[in-house]
């Protein structure tokens, strides 16, 4: 199955949350998605790299990512998502869980 890659960044001029060490969540083979979240100094922005078996949802990914960055205040981070047809509800849930775990360390 060919995977499609999507890269984009969400600007965050005034981050309120920063990450410590990198954090990995989920297994793409048996679950809905796999996520790696790590600190990356890039002027506040949060960059996303999404690998997904489906296309046509670029705007949806950006909406969810944007809402997550606004809600969490996260900045200077890179998030890799290996998607297995997760719904936006699941993506948001996993982002919140990953951040909660990563900042708790």
């Amino acid at each position, binding site marked *: 199955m060919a995977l499609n890659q999507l890269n984009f960044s969400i600007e965050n001029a005034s981050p309120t949350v920063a990450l410590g060490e990198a954090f990995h969540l989920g297994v793409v083979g048996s679950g*809905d998605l796999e996520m790696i979240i790590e600190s990356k100094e890039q002027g506040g922005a949060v960059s996303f790299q999404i690998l997904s078996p*489906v296309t046509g*949802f670029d705007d*949806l990914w950006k*909406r*969810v990512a944007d*809402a997550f960055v606004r809600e969490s205040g996260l900045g200077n981070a890179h998030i890799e998502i290996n998607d297995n*047809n997760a*719904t*936006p*509800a*699941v993506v*948001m*849930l996993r982002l*919140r*869980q990953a951040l*909660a775990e990563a900042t708790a360390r």
Partner: protein
Amino acid sequence: MLQTKVNRSWENAKQDTAQRMEAASRFIGNGKQVKHEDTVALLEAVIRPYDIVNIEGNNQKQADFLAECLNKVDRGKIHDLHMVQSAVPLKAHLDLFENGIAKKLDFAFGGPQAGRVAEFIRDGKLELGAIHTYLELFGRYFLDLTPKVSLICAYKADRKGNLYTGFNTEDTPTIVEATKFRQGIVIAQVNEIVDELPRVDIPADWIDAVIESPRPFFLEPLFTRDPALVTDTQILLGMMCLKGIYGPYGVKRLNHGIGFLSTAIELMLPTYGEELGLKGKICTHMILNPHPTMIPAIESGWVETIHCFGGELGMDEYVASRPDIFFTGPDGTLRSNRAFAQTAGHYALDMFIGGTLQIDKYGNSSTATANRVAGFGGAPNMGCDAKGRRHVTESWLKCGQELPNREAIQGDMPRGRRLVVQGVETFGEGRAPVFVDKLDAWKLAENANLDLPPVMIYGDDLTHIVTEEGIAYLSRCPDLESRMAAIRGVAGYTEIGLQAKPEETKRLREAGIIMTPEDLGIDRSRANRSLLAAKNMQDLVTWSGGLYNPPARFRNW
């Protein structure tokens, strides 16, 4: 005084049936038994062109052998039949129209054949009478759609022709009563003929012929859900339902739809429900098929009674061992009955909760897609506010009192209201948005020449929508505009959801019309599978003390 007394025979139907049975008599032996090889000839003897014919096609059990035999009749002799039946899930049901044996269809549920129903309507092979609910169709069996011949299905017959329909009694009593008491003909396929039945469900004098089928009838485990497949999002939605709806309204009498949200809720009663202190306050009386995922709640003492539309494969022994809960006969086995369960579902439930494929901006919901005439079975009866209801329960009264401008609309008369809840993720399978501007039902109406778009639950009957964003309490909305705003507010990143205005959503949250998980005091990080009382099929078997016997395809351990 003008008198116009008609001069006619009043026994035409009876005489017609007698003639047909005379033609069939050479195939019918002792105990009304017919050899299975003679079935096609029997059907050719008793059925005439344009007859109204019922093939027992329920949600679950199927008179499949008789359906196949009806396809083999000589279409020169038998054609243009008018089929009336609950469901058309088998290929043979639609083959009748392809083969030119049947012409018209009145039904309630299409299932896997829904695509062919739409196609045949377009191609002129099938004339659609109407799509009904089960209760509507049953009602019409006794009004203007009485079958002349019914082909039914039972587990066992005795040597006189009495029938045992047992666990899966479902629609049989309704079909037989309508047919036989208008002098029609009833033919039964049974799995086996025995000396003595566990009990008599249908008396022999209402039956005209009994055929021992060459193989047992088809039965589908439609209501078995593997707990291992419940997702964290479904658990989050379930937590919101329990804390935001079941608890505050004190919902005691209800039905659960078949989706995984119901599964999550059922499996969280003994855990999260217990923690919320809801035991004995909710879910005490249910109209529900024997869902295996109810076992932990039953075993933990949550439930007082369950009446069933139909059976469920593998649950017979468990159900028979819990006669305080389930409706079992003198022989000890369950008797399901769709007509009675649906009657309770229409009139006596405090709440219906289910899922759907689409909800439009007004709150109308439908599982119809552009090319499938599927019908909705019993959902519209349970998913509506029954205006004929007069008895009062706490949650019904409470929901009815919530409408802020009720005096302006109803005057000073107090009213109650059924809770009708749709629980959905904002995006479903394949990331298709659940919230849409216009339902696909409109396209279906056009494609299949229907008079109306098939709507499962009308927006004005819907009282609550639960999504990962929150609960919309539509029962608290004074008008269509605020209802639409509440729907937008929980519609997430769908096009409908993006039209929500943050200030407006904030106002609705302050007014208690929208509640987010945070507003409800729900910690999202707890939404995971550790809240499920059973995490897989094997756990269900363990909870049941070994009485539940899952079908082979669910035996995954």
